């Protein structure tokens, strides 16, 4: 099983390549270009910070952050490139060092270099987003102008801001133009709340929008008979459908369709309002080519998800919350038909808010672009 949060990036070859370019004077023309050893040292510190592990080595990382905080302005963009291979914790170490550096630089921040870096979608999204934040507080007009080409940007915060700007630009336009732009932005948006807001606007203006379709929820499922979960035993129990999770078996399957904007597979509606039970739901999803993708599930119940027999998500949490994309796991999909199996466990809580027994699931790339079609 591969959980997204556990991913560890590979060695930062891209960044070191950039260091090489810089140190031989192909990049940059200011003080740093005259001091390639200093640049290399700074970038090496930035890479160490960016690739820091989740714990340990704090003293060394703090020293490296101090080095970054003291860099010359010309070193700023080369250090931003170190975000290319950043770990979750490494992002914070490097951000702290760079924010302090920018704070110290004052009006010496190389805005033109930062602008070019932010504008380049091939640069690491984290670094570009940080650079955009600096630009916003120093040259808001330039920052805003960059957004015009970012409607399909791989950096989600920049894409979101670009969509907001585009929508704001037509706020006073004639309704047909507004509707046309909103339709375009609905296709561009990836943040769920932004998709929902644009869809709501379109509905208010007479468009029929299938939000479930836009978000790409897997709609067609078959639910198994129920199994015992009294006392919570069912979560760990291996019932027949998961004995061969790649080709689940059950004595009875019932067709269930996901309903509503939330793409909910409501097992209470399908199987009866039950407590202390487990059911499995299976769906087939076609992929045009083999690839890794994110499986994103939301449920108020304990869930386990398998893709082609490989467990990709398991969360034994009952009635704490429910949200779209609540749990995310990475899975390998093959070209053609793939089998997704969900084990959804309902407990015995009696409160009214603990009655729901449902889930929603979609398959996306890392940006949230829906993937896969159902046969």
């Amino acid at each position: 099983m591969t959980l997204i949060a556990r991913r560890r990036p590979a060695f930062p070859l891209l960044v070191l390549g950039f260091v090489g370019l810089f140190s031989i004077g192909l990049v940059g023309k200011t003080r740093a270009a005259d001091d390639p050893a200093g640049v290399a040292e700074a970038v090496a510190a930035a890479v160490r910070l960016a690739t820091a592990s989740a714990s340990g080595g704090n003293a060394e990382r703090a020293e490296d952050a101090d080095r970054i905080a003291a860099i010359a302005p010309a070193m700023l963009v080369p250090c931003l490139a170190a975000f290319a291979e950043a770990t979750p914790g490494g992002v914070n170490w490097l951000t702290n060092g760079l924010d302090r550096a920018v704070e110290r630089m004052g009006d010496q921040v190389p805005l033109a270099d930062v602008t070019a870096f932010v504008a380049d979608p091939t640069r690491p999204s984290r670094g570009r987003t940080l650079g955009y934040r600096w630009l916003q507080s120093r040259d808001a007009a330039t920052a805003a102008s960059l957004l015009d080409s970012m409607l399909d940007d791989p950096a989600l915060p920049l894409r979101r801001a670009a969509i907001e700007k585009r929508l704001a630009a037509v706020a006073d336009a004639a309704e047909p133009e507004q509707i046309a732009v909103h339709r375009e932005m609905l296709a561009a948006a990836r943040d769920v709340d932004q998709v929902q807001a644009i869809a709501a606007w379109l509905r208010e203006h007479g468009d029929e929008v299938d939000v479930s379709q836009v978000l790409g929820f897997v709609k067609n499922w078959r639910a198994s008979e129920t199994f015992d979960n009294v006392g919570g035993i069912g979560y760990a129990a291996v019932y027949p459908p998961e004995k061969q999770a790649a080709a689940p078996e059950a004595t009875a399957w019932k067709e269930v369709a996901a309903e509503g904007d939330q793409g909910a597979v409501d097992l209470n509606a399908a199987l009866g309002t039950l407590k202390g039970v487990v059911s499995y739901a299976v769906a087939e999803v076609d992929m045009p080519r083999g690839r890794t993708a994110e499986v994103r599930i939301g449920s108020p119940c304990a869930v386990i998800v398998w893709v082609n027999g490989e467990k990709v998500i398991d969360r034994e949490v009952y009635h704490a919350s429910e949200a779209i994309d609540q749990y995310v796991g990475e899975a390998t999909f093959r070209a053609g038909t793939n089998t997704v199996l969900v084990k959804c466990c309902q407990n015995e809580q009696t409160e009214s808010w603990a009655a729901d027994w449902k889930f929603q699931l979609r398959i996306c790339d890392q940006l949230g672009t829906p993937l896969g079609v159902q046969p």
Partner: protein
Amino acid sequence: MAAGVILGAAPGAATAGEWLGFRGGDGSGVAADTAIRRTWSEEEGIAWKVDLPGRSVASPIVVGDLVVATASSGPQQDQLHVVAVDRESGTIRWQRVFQATGRTLCHPTSAVAACTPASDGERIVAFYSSCDLFCLDLEGRLLWQRNLAVEHPRAGNDVGMGSSPRIIDDAVFVQVDCQGDAFGSAIDLATGEDRWSVTRAKLASWSSPLEVDVAEHGACVLMQNPRGLELRRADDGTAVWLWEGNVGGIAMAATAEGRVFVPSSGIAAVDPTADSGRPLWQQPKLSCGISSPVVFGDSVATLNNGGVLAVADRADGSLRKQVRLAGTFWASPIVVGDTIVAVNMEGTTFVVDAGGSYEILAENDLPGSFPSTPAVADGSLYLQSETALWKTAAAAQP
């Protein structure tokens, strides 16, 4: 299991000059040696106001010449802010932004910035619902970080975590209670390394660790969840006392002079040195909602979600008075000088006489939603709404 002789309330009772954690550095919520002005409004009696860079339901702290607040922002609430405000001028001295590494889902009424930061006067620790813990110096330099949800992948609660860190003897104590990877840890304040860590019951709670000193064991940390209390030595984590009972999952216990006042069917007063788990007294009318009880003088007071302030004799639990305030309360009451200060969600701060009459002396309105327990230092209150931080002007000198 009995804990031995209790020395008394946790040391380091809030001084007039600083307020170093949730309900102060000692967690008591008492600042006896200061006084605040009685009245203020948006137009009068306010020293300054600062807008926060995101949402927060945490409380501010006051350390040195800084007021430190946390906030979270972004569509996924995954941008974690630490904001250091100049205490005198209200200008932002520095601001740091971190990326959450753990879960950032939470109830719409909460925020990922739900845990009050803490300080030892030299360092600031900021903890978030995402289980990210950052230690910074007073200039905003990151000294260490712990991405605890990376270390404990199933840690977190999608309602939102709310337990605030507590600093005891150069260690920061965190309590991560949830249905997944629940644990409690003592983390060295200087290095960020674990001193000890224990697995806790897979049960959600939002209460915060509290220092209780016991003669036989020295400084101990009290952690509670809905099934009871657990007292552990601060230095090595050895469990020295367990108390089983139905305990509130949000309001945290208070302690004073050898007793622990536990939110449990009202308030139960328990003695951690006794072999018997039987409460010394239990007063059901001391009802806690989200707000934690406060012990001051010979009294204990509670505030329920509906705004009923109840005061009882802390020796025997006999009820002295119930006073109906107005509104809904998340913030815990604090005691400042001879007044009880309680802030409702609607932005009204009640100043209540703590000297025996328990009369409402003043009601002061500010705009916004106020889930946060106020801080107090040097005669000023620091009131935090979900989006802004306000400082009241100091009380006029007599």
